[in-house]
């Protein structure tokens, strides 16, 4: 029971650390001006030096590293504030799917450019009417000669506006049960008939898009898996989702609340003196440490060549609610200062409070996380599915 690397891991970490120390700072910090260009430059630098997509085969731009090594590099990389977001989906979800289902030619054509950051990919799965019922998608694909013609709408597509390619699940046959009529493709995001619209969130930010398809044509050669077998392909993609998304970020954490409570007056004393405040802070500290050390246990499993299980779902569940609660606590402590403009923008606490609902929902709501834990970890029965075996076009859909 220690926090130390094995000898091999320590060597690897040293190499990673030293390469990062030399190269990362140049790409660090404020990259809002041209975030994508900065991200591509950093990815290219990693690729050129052999630090991109570590666990991938060498022939596609990786270095055949172990999952533990990949995690070590990722951890060290987060010590710097680097622009890595645009590649998470392409490298984390599209690439494993391409590896499993694309032709050798396609792999040779696309994977190295995913690794080098030259091309950015997005994922076109969710639809407005679907929500947590992912397979209830309606975007239609109809075969037309050597092409497929796509009509419909996707939603929650991160990075659609700057992506070069996308992975897409469609319904090719609505007359069979839900999971059986799906077909999976990848496509050029500049295809005619494809329109991207940003979604404005509560927080005012737009991290997601809606994508509209009007007679978009995809060559059949870009089908992944057999016609009607799209759900199986999608599961390959989704199995990699949790790993790619990671925990909710911790902009509002214990330390935020601790610092604020130390600086803010409550009844003539610093709020931190108050035992009720302390109790609340201690709760968050224990949650945060609990997640941190759960992470250490996962890393240990990787080190031992084991696969960490869906128990990692607790990270998102606990962290997102904690962020909301900490933001709310800080606002209440500050009173009106907490909800008002501060140096031309809303207080960081108000911003976090507005952003938190998104964190509690995007990538799977609290309730979905609980279902995952209940079913996949504890082995409890699935919810009853009234749509089981029912042809998709006969399943009740409601109005919304």
């Amino acid at each position: 029971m220690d926090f130390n690397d094995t000898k091999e891991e320590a060597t690897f970490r040293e190499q990673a650390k030293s390469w990062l120390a030399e190269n990362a700072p140049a790409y660090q910090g404020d990259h809002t001006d041209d975030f994508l260009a900065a991200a591509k430059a950093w990815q290219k630098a990693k690729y050129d030096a052999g630090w991109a997509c570590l666990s991938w085969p060498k022939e596609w731009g990786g270095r055949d590293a172990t999952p533990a090594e990949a995690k070590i590099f990722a951890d060290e990389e987060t010590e710097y504030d680097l622009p890595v977001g645009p590649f998470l989906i392409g490298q984390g979800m599209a690439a494993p799917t391409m590896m499993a289902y694309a032709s050798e030619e396609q792999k040779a054509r696309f994977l190295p450019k995913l690794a080098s950051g030259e091309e950015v990919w997005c994922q076109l799965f969710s639809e407005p009417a679907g929500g947590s019922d992912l397979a209830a998608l309606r975007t239609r694909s109809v075969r037309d000669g050597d092409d497929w013609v796509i009509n419909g709408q996707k939603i929650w597509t991160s990075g659609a506006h700057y992506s070069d390619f996308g992975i897409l699940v469609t319904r090719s046959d609505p007359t069979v049960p839900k999971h059986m009529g799906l077909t999976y493709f990848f496509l050029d995001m500049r295809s005619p008939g494809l329109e991207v619209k940003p979604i404005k969130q509560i927080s005012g930010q737009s991290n997601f898009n809606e994508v509209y398809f009007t007679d978009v044509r995809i060559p059949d050669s870009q089908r992944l898996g057999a016609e009607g077998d799209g759900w199986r392909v999608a599961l390959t993609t989704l199995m990699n989702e949790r790993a790619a998304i990671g925990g909710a970020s911790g902009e509002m954490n214990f330390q935020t609340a601790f610092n604020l409570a130390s600086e803010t007056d409550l009844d003539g004393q610093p709020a931190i003196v108050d035992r009720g405040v302390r109790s609340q802070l201690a709760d968050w500290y224990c949650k945060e440490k609990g997640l941190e050390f759960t992470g250490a246990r996962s890393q240990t499993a990787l080190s031992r060549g084991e696969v960490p299980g869906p128990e990692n779902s607790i990270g998102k569940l606990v962290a997102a609610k904690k962020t909301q609660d900490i933001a709310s606590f800080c606002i209440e402590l500050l009173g009106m200062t907490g909800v008002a403009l501060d140096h031309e923008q809303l207080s960081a606490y108000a911003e976090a409070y507005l952003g938190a609902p998104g964190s509690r929902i995007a990538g799977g709501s609290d309730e979905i996380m609980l279902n995952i834990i209940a079913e996949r970890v504890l082995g409890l029965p699935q919810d009853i599915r009234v749509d089981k075996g029912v042809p998709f076009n006969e399943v009740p859909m409601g109005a919304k």
Partner: protein
Amino acid sequence: MNFEFSAEQNLLREQAVGFLSDRAPLSVARRILDGDETYASEVWQEIINLGWTATAVPESHGGFGFGHLELCVVAEELGRSLAPVPFSSSVYLATEAIASAANDVRDDWLPKLACGEVIGCVALYEVSGAPDPDRMNDCTVSDGVLNGGKRWVTDGAIADMSVVTARDADTGNLCLYVVDLSAEGVQRSTIDTIDPTRNHADLQFDNVSAMPLASEIGDSTGLRRLLDRSAVLFAFEQLGGAEAALNMAREYALGRYAFGRPIAGYQAIKHKLAKMYVAVQLARSNCYYGAWALATDAPELPVAAATARVSASQAYRECSEENIQIHGGMGFTWEFDCHLYYRRAKLLSVNLGGEYDWKHRLISCIEADQAA
């Protein structure tokens, strides 16, 4: 036992519901959210025409002479509609303060507030935290002249007059003063908050004429009483908002299908909605307690106000957060209305001091009662 609103009061409620759903649906709040207006002036004008601003003002001063129960009804419905108007500032706060002022001040201002000729507000804050009299030291009045600054004044950029807490330069007592905001020496700067559907401004006073509300009320007695009375009315706004958020969540859950059936049929959602309902019911019952104490000026008012306020803040927080959660992905989009309640809930929760402060105060009042 008659612990409900009367038939007449419920008739008033029906009228309010009809008017507000017609003239102040959520699209009006959204117009203010997305646009440059500071408030929905056409809705405000109609509210004046309906006489709501005169509800609890005595007939002797141009009011309808209804009791405060009627005002509670209006407050609940305004809270439900999220109407972006300066009602709370002008009626719960300024009118309440002026109504208990000395004769000359009252006779001067009350009719104008009642008929909507002027919009009032109350300026309390100088520093962060709850509105604590001990931490109001910047504004002072000397020889009837006010100097100093106030922050985060709700409707501060809209109002024509403000009640201001300030120190009497001679005695050091914290008193309530009334100030004409069109006077020279008043500077206002609009600030944005988490809820852009309500106006807020910082105010600066440089040698501005200020009338004491009542010379005999020293220290914080007058302020405390004002906060308690307005807290009941704010609690009704919170109650209305909480119930609206619950209803919105319920409607959505009934209409939204997943896996072939409405999500309202899944226990995770059912029980969440049931818990929201429980929170709303407890808040409603405690708000009625507050209303009774407010209307009868009962000695229980401080306890009742704190009880109503704590319950209503809790209910609104829970309902506004869970409403988003039940909406799933749609819930955190700008396009859906969920965030309007989420924003308003947080604003109303902190604007008279947060839940933790009111709980502290509640126990202090109970201690005082039980020691007596």
